[in-house]
C-alpha cells in the first residue's frame, strides 16, 4: 500500500508529452478545490468558530471576557448537566463496550456456526444506525408502564415499576443508549479480534498456560488499547446524543445536549453567552476523546494489523 502511494506521489505527471498540455494546471487545480473550501468555511468552519469567539466575548459590550467560562464552572445546574452527560456516556460506553466485545468475540472465536458472524455484522450495522425518535418509541413500547415486557413481567408477578425502575430516568435512558452502543462496539472491534492470531493461543496452550493465563498475559494486553479506544468512541457517540433522550424523556433529563436544545428554543440561561460556552465545552470534551482514541489506536497498531 505504502509503496503504491509513494510511487504515485513520486512519479511526475507525464503531461508534457500529452497533446492538451497547454492548459495551465495551476488554475484548474484551484478551481477544483475552491467549492469545497467555500462550502466548508461557510457552513462548518465559520459557524463553529463563532462558538469559540462568543464564548469569550461579552454579549453587550463585545469586549473580551472570561466570565462565561468562570460562570459555567461555578454554575451547579450546568456542571450537573455535564456530569450526567459524562456519567451516562461512560456507563453506556463501558457497558456497551464489554457486551459488544463479548458478543463479537463469541461470534468470531466462539466456535459458533459461520453464518452467525455475518448476520451479527448486518444486525449491528442496522442497529447502530437505529436511533433517535423510533428507538425511543421502541423502548416505550417495550418497557414503559404499559409496555409489552412490563405487562408480561407483571403477569408473572414482578412489576419492575414497583421495584424502583423507570424508563424515563438515568438507568432507563442507559438501557436505551445501549441499543446503539454495543452494535457500534461489535462493528469496530471485530477487525481487532480477527487480528488475534490463533498461533498465540496454540503456543500458550503448548507451554501449559491456562485459559486465564492466556487472557491475562496475551490476549488482553494486546486487545486492551483497541477495546479502550473503541469505548472512548462510544463515549463520544453517547455524549453528543440528543434526539433519543429528548424523545424519550421530553427533555426531563438534564443532559448538556438537552440544555443546549432548550437554550436554542427560548434562551433559558441567564445570558446567551453562557450557551456558547456550554457548547464550546462539549466540543472540548469531544476533542479530548478523539485525541485519546487516536493515541490508543497508534498503540494497537503495533500488534494488530
Amino acid at each position, binding site marked *: 500500500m505504502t509503496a503504491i502511494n509513494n510511487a*504515485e506521489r513520486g512519479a511526475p*505527471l*507525464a*503531461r508534457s508529452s*500529452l*497533446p*492538451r498540455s497547454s492548459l495551465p*494546471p495551476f488554475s484548474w487545480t484551484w478551481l*477544483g*478545490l475552491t*467549492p*469545497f473550501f467555500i*462550502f466548508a468555511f*461557510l*457552513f*462548518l468552519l465559520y*459557524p*463553529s468558530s*463563532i462558538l469559540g469567539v*462568543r464564548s469569550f466575548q461579552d454579549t453587550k459590550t463585545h469586549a473580551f471576557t472570561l466570565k462565561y467560562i468562570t460562570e459555567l464552572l461555578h454554575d451547579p445546574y450546568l456542571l450537573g448537566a455535564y456530569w450526567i452527560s459524562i456519567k451516562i456516556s461512560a456507563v453506556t460506553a463501558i457497558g456497551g463496550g464489554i*457486551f459488544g466485545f463479548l*458478543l463479537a*468475540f*463469541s461470534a468470531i472465536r466462539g466456535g*459458533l456456526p459461520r453464518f452467525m458472524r*455475518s448476520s*451479527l*455484522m*448486518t444486525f449491528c*450495522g*442496522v442497529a447502530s*444506525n437505529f*436511533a*433517535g*425518535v*423510533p*428507538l*425511543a*418509541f421502541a*423502548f416505550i*413500547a417495550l418497557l414503559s408502564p404499559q409496555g*409489552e415486557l412490563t405487562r408480561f413481567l407483571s403477569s408473572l408477578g414482578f412489576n419492575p415499576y414497583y421495584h424502583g425502575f423507570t424508563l424515563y430516568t438515568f438507568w432507563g435512558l442507559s438501557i436505551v443508549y*445501549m*441499543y446503539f452502543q454495543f452494535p457500534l462496539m461489535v*462493528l469496530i472491534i*471485530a477487525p481487532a479480534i480477527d487480528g488475534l492470531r490463533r498461533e498465540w493461543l496454540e503456543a500458550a496452550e503448548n507451554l501449559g498456560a491456562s485459559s486465564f493465563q492466556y487472557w491475562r498475559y496475551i490476549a488482553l494486553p494486546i486487545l486492551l488499547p483497541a477495546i479502550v479506544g473503541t469505548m472512548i468512541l462510544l463515549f*463520544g457517540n*453517547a455524549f*453528543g446524543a*440528543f*434526539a433519543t433522550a*429528548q424523545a424519550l424523556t421530553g427533555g426531563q433529563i438534564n443532559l448538556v*445536549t438537552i440544555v*443546549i*436544545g432548550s437554550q*436554542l*428554543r427560548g434562551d433559558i440561561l441567564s445570558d446567551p453567552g453562557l*450557551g456558547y460556552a456550554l457548547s464550546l465545552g*462539549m466540543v472540548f470534551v*469531544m476533542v479530548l476523546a478523539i485525541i485519546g482514541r487516536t493515541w490508543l489506536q497508534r498503540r494497537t497498531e503495533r500488534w494488530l494489523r
Partner: protein
Amino acid sequence: MRRGGQIWAWFWMVLGVLYFFLPLLATFLFSLRAKKGVLSFLAYQNILTDPDFTHSFSSSIVWAVFTIIVGILIFVPTAYLIRLRLPRFRTPVEFITLLPFVIPVIVYVFSLVRTFSQPPLLIVDSPALLIAAYTVVSMPYMYSAIDTGLRAIDVRTLTEAGQSLGASWATILFRIILPNIRVAILSGAFISFAIVMGELILAQYLVKPAFAPYMAFLMQQKAYEPAALAIVSFALTWACMGVIQLVGRGRGEAQIAAGH
C-alpha cells in the same frame, strides 16, 4: 475452542439477539393494537392516509436527494484532485471532513442558527441552509466512501487515457471517474439517505417539514401510530444498510452514522 467457551458464546449471542429484537417485537405488537381487542393494521392505514405523513416523508426524500447531489458535486472533484494533483491538501481536507464527528449535531445547529439568523447572513429560513447542514453532517461518510472508491481505481491512468483521447476535464470527471466509482458513491449515498431520513435535530430547529420531526410530533399526540412509524423507519434503515452491504460486499467500515 473448549466446550465451556462455546456455551458462553451461545449465551452472549442469545442475549444480543434478545436485546436486538425484543424492542422491535414490542413495537410491532404495539402497532397492531390500534383497534381494540383485535390485531389489525389500522395504525398503518391511519398513517398512510395522513396528509402530514405524505408531506413530511416526501420532504425528507427531497432533502436527501439534494444532499446526495450536493455531496457528489462537491466531494468527488475534491477527492479526485487531491488524489491526482494535490496530495499536500490531503491532511487539511480530511481534517475538515472529520470535524462533524467532534461537533455534536445539537451544538452544530446551535451555531448555525446563531450565525445565520442575523443580517447580513439572514438565511436561516432558506431550505438551502438545511441541505447544506445535512451535507455537512453526512460529510464524513460521503467523503470517506468516495475516497475509498478512488483508492480502488487507477485515477492517474484513467485521467491520462482520457486526456490523450482529447477529453475535457468535465468529461474525465463525470464520464470516466464517476462511473468507475459508482459503487462507492452509491454506498455513500445510501448512508446519507439514512442519515437524512433519521435526523431529527436539523429539521426541527431549522423549522422545516421532515420525517423525524413528524414522528416526534406524533409521539406526543397518538399511541399506536408512532409505533407503526417506528417500524416503517426501521424497515427503511434496514433497506438502506442492506443495499450498502449488497453493493459494497460487506465493507463494514463506513456504516456508522450520526443522528442519535
